[in-house]
């Protein structure tokens, strides 16, 4: 009968089963190890970055900024920005509105070394710091004007410059309403904030966000429901710089004063 198994068959099946189990246990990991080393030889060890799965922005909470300038300093170190005070990917401005409603703005050395106290504190109506950087506009005028397409918007929403392609005409610098670009004095190509693209594509935070002692800057996904940036956008009132120019910035400010330009 078909369902009757004799003893010899039974023993044989048990032995075969045990042998294949042993083989699988020993050889399986060996094979996957071999595969892994093959993969390591052909691809970088970092997990593949898929730009289509991200859409980045940055929140800046103005009432948190203490004007220490650590962000601007960290940016220069991380991105090899020339140390001279004429080149900035990010900087901090101080606004002092006096009792006569006169507005005084300064950013000595980009605010890199902090600020000296204003002359007469009792005459101040209100005062605050504004960190500035490339706004990574959704509708970037710099990208529009670049004659060779060297500056472009990536799928993850970051505006980048291909410095090996840039002709150095500086039209993008003229077209940026925020003064966020400069001509790199050594590379002779346009340079600007990249949200530390070399870091964010590895899952790290931009250097300025990383070092900020007051968590003024919130970096993350604009579209991700559970992201800290999304939470900020949900809880706070959001403003952008120069909205009338229709550049649609992705640097989003909270408590932005109307005097800030």
């Amino acid at each position, binding site marked *: 009968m078909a369902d009757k198994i004799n003893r010899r068959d039974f023993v044989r099946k048990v032995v075969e089963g045990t042998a294949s189990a042993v083989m699988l246990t020993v050889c399986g990991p060996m094979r996957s190890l071999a595969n892994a080393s093959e993969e390591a030889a052909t691809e970088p060890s970092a997990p593949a970055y898929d730009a289509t799965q991200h859409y980045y922005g940055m929140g800046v909470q103005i009432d948190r900024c203490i004007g220490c300038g650590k962000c601007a300093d960290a940016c220069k170190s991380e991105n090899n920005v020339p140390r*001279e*005070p*004429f*080149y*900035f990917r990010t*900087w901090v*401005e101080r606004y002092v509105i006096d009792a006569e409603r006169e*507005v*005084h*703005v*300064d*950013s000595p*050395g*980009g605010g890199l070394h902090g600020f000296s106290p204003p002359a007469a504190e009792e005459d101040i109506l209100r005062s605050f710091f504004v960190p*500035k950087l490339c706004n990574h506009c959704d509708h970037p*005028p710099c*990208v*529009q*004007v*670049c*004659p*060779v*397409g060297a500056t472009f918007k990536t799928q993850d929403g970051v505006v980048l410059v291909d410095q090996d*392609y*840039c*002709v*150095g*005409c*500086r*039209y993008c*610098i*003229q*077209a*940026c*309403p*925020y*003064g*966020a*670009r*400069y*001509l790199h*004095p*050594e*590379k*002779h*190509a346009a340079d600007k904030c990249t949200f530390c693209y070399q870091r964010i594509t590895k899952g790290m935070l931009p250097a300025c966000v990383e070092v900020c002692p007051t968590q003024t800057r919130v970096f993350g996904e604009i579209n991700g429901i559970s992201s800290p940036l999304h939470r900020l956008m949900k809880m706070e009132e959001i403003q952008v710089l120069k909205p009338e*120019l229709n550049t649609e910035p992705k640097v989003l400010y909270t408590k932005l004063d109307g005097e800030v*330009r």
Partner: protein
Amino acid sequence: MQAHFAELAALVGQISGFIYPNEIELQWSILIVIYPYLTGLVAGAFILASLEKVFNVKELQPTYRLALLCALSFLIVAPMPLQAHLGHPERSLEMLMTPNPNSAMAMFGFVYLWYLLLVLLLEIWFDFRADMVRWSQQSRGLKKFFYSALALGTTDISDEAVAFDHKAVYTITLVGIPSAFILHGYVGFIFGSIKANPWWSSVLIPIVFLFSAIVSGIAMILLIYYISSLIRGQQPKMPCMDKLASFLLYALILDFSLESLDFIHRLYESEESIHILSELIVSKLFLSLTIVQIMLGTILPLLMLAFGRYSRLPAELKRIIYVISAMLIQVGIFSTRWNVVIGGQLFSKSLRGLTAYKLEMGGQEGLLAAIGFLILPFLIFLLLIKILPPWEDEKETVPAAIEA
């Protein structure tokens, strides 16, 4: 590099108010002032030439060929300051190979090539073809070959062939007028379309550029016609001088009206930027805008031309008035370009402060280089009139300069 940083550090002291820290370095130097000045002369000279051909203004006949060769000389030099100004000049051809179709600047190469190859060179070739054939036939050796090559090997100078040349010139001029408008209107659009800059961002800028181009072109041809006549020991023809002065006056009135409209419009609308722009005009641009561009470069020559044209002065005196007016206009138009290009970079986009521009003497973007780019077109012009003499009275004689 260190010298450059020292220059920038020295500029910090000249800042008034607040500017973004990246704005200390002024991006577009005097070389970019020269570019719209030269293309303006090209467009203006061509439009003047077309008056004679298409609108049949007989009095301007002596200036027709001068204007064409002058336009070509300036057009050859026009892209040079741009090229010299690039951070990576070796990559400039990428603008033609991989242009960004959304970029106003990327179209420059195409507009330029269209104008150079399809309008100017073609028109000059058809206009001079019969002469080149004749010059080739009348000479020997290398010179014969040279003119034969310039005529692209053509030999037919029958009435029929010459009639075709005339027809071709007429057609090209018809295409050329809108092309000249596009060439310089386009240069204006490069500035006028920058919404980040309230000094530039104006729909009137391309039109103002165009009319100031016509003004500068006519003034330049007037000067060249006058000087070349003197050098050749001839009296400049008075009907021609009068006609040039008339057109110059009309163009100047139109140009001044448009610029005034732009000015009044800004003042009346009084937008956010008006405070800083007013400050700019009364401080950094006072000399170059109020004094040189408006007073010396526009109002004074306007009055002088009107007086010279419609008064009963002796011809000699009239000519001198025209020539001085034309010189003042050249200075005025150069100031116009300066005030647009440099002026547009002297205030911060924060609208809270003014910055400074220090013109260097030497170096790639210095005054000497700029003067070089301004002299070069005249050297090319001298060469061109040796090869292709534009004088009506010498049409039959072989150019003496090209001796083999």
